């Protein structure tokens, strides 16, 4: 029996597993008839899954966790049985701000902020895509690493990925943290300067997940696993270097990203900063990465210190990943959690079907994150809203 279902996505390169699974018939091969629906707002994606209009969607990993916790909305029974990608997000600044910064590091931003303050100009304004996003945490982390308070010294606004370019052009923002391909679009068409990429901030860090309604997954477990298998296969296909050109063309179509193929292709290169869909366990929903996201929610006061971290971690479902991965013949990590930011060089991770090659995973400031002491980590930053 063919099962029909609806999945939502936002026009971003990391929606590739969904688009590839649809376009290459990988959902159909699993016996599911999937309709993809493009949305322009993350809040609408969240609400449509909550209302049962979508059974699942391409979701910001932190939004899946926030929705489950009931932070920013009524609680939504969302689970994340797979990650869709690593890398792709980038912090960029306008040509004007770049000229004032006179360097690419956060310390240079301090000088630019001071210059503006001295002239009595409006504060430096950055756009991020959603309050609960890796983009927000990466931007705040980077700004705070130089001793700037992201709530006091800088102005941060929210704009959807596709609108960041317009805002930069109109001069209403000076910088941004946005997902691919929109960073490259700002760079190419607006003279923006990319100063930090997700692959430099945290190699192998999380970004988007497949968010699934837990109610639906419990009711239709076979259909849910069929979707997962299709997506895991699509992620493998999308990662193959020989498919990069075809993938860029497929994504750039007007009903998907509606962006120039050559700019989409820019972040599909297989270097340290390029998007990863499957390789280096990029599809695996690491509970330690959910823990890191929760640590940043604590750090910036988005969740109350009394909230149990366990509730956030339960959003990630490595058990479901393993079931689908074993059907597909993919090696899955033997552990659900790891210390993040520990490896300075490539390493091998023990997997269910032999070792999985992994890249370095050092954070750009060389800190290390142990999920077992996430509160101490969140409270340990020079700038944090969490006091121990």
């Amino acid at each position, binding site marked *: 029996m063919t099962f029909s279902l609806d999945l939502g996505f936002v026009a971003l390169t990391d929606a590739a597993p969904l688009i590839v699974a649809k376009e290459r018939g990988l959902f159909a091969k699993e016996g599911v008839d999937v309709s993809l629906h493009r949305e*322009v*707002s993350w*809040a609408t994606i969240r609400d449509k899954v909550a*209302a049962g209009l979508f059974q699942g969607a391409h979701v910001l990993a932190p939004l899946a966790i926030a929705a489950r916790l009931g932070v920013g*909305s009524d609680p939504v029974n969302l689970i994340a049985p797979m990650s869709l990608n690593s890398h792709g997000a980038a912090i960029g600044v306008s040509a004007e701000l770049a000229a004032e910064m006179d360097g690419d590091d956060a310390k240079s931003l301090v000088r630019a902020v001071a210059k503006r303050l001295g002239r009595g100009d409006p504060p430096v304004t950055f756009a991020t895509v*959603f309050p609960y996003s890796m983009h927000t945490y990466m931007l705040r982390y980077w700004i705070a690493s130089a001793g700037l308070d992201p709530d006091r010294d800088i*102005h941060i*606004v929210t704009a*959807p990925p596709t*609108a960041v370019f317009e805002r930069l052009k109109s001069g209403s923002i000076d910088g941004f943290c946005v997902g691919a391909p929109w960073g490259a679009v700002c760079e190419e068409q607006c003279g923006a300067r990319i100063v930090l990429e997700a692959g430099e901030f945290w190699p192998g860090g999380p970004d988007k997940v497949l968010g699934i309604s837990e109610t639906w997954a419990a009711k239709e477990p076979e259909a849910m696993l069929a979707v997962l298998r299709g997506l895991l296969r699509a992620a493998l296909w999308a990662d193959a270097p020989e498919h990069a050109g075809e993938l860029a063309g497929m994504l750039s179509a007007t009903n998907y990203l509606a962006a120039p193929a050559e700019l989409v292709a820019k972040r599909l290169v297989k270097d340290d900063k390029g998007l990863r869909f499957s390789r280096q366990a990029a599809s695996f929903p690491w509970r330690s990465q959910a823990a890191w996201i929760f640590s940043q929610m604590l750090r910036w006061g988005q969740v109350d210190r009394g909230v149990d971290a366990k509730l956030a971690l339960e959003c990630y479902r490595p058990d479901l990943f393993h079931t689908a991965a074993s059907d597909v013949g993919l090696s899955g990590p033997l552990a659900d959690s790891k210390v993040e930011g520990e490896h300075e060089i490539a390493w091998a991770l023990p997997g269910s079907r032999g070792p999985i090659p992994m890249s370095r995973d050092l954070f750009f400031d060389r800190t290390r994150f142990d999920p077992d002491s996430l509160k101490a980590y969140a409270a340990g930053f020079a700038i944090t809203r969490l006091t121990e």
Partner: protein
Amino acid sequence: MRLLLVDPDPARAALVAEGLAGIDPLDLHRTPSLNEADLLRIMPDLVIIACDSPDRDTLESLREATQNNPRPVVMFVDRSEPGRAEEAVRAGVAAYIIDGLQPSRVRTILEVAMSRFQLMQQLRSDLAKAQSDLASRKTVERAKGVLMKERQIGEEEAYAMLRKLAMNTGRPIAAVATDLLSFHGVLKGDKP
């Protein structure tokens, strides 16, 4: 009450505004897109926003009061009856209120907005249906013409032939007509 309606679709916004005209007292402002400066200038008590507006996420981020955002907003969820919240999502509309506003007044306004969004959906789908009906009628007319010419038969007989073909294959008459036209084209030498 000061209401800001954010809708990138001007026809729909007009329809909603007309529906809200009966509610008194209501100070209604309309904009196709939203930015922080508009919010500060208008200082609405209530924002009704289309779910297909990309500016919805900007509103979502204004939950916390800051120097730039003295009046924090929350999404208004109608809990008066089960299924009301889902109905709003289905209609494609969301409401945000300044924290502390009376829910009963908001409910009435949201209901009007929802029904107008649904009406617009209905009008659009009726229009699409009318357009496709017209297109299939034209196709059937052309197929009839081909049959009349090739078989040297009358209009009624040609139509009966198409209907019989449709019934035999269990397909809509317009689909049969489309096939007939394309096969006819190929036989005449068109590239398929």
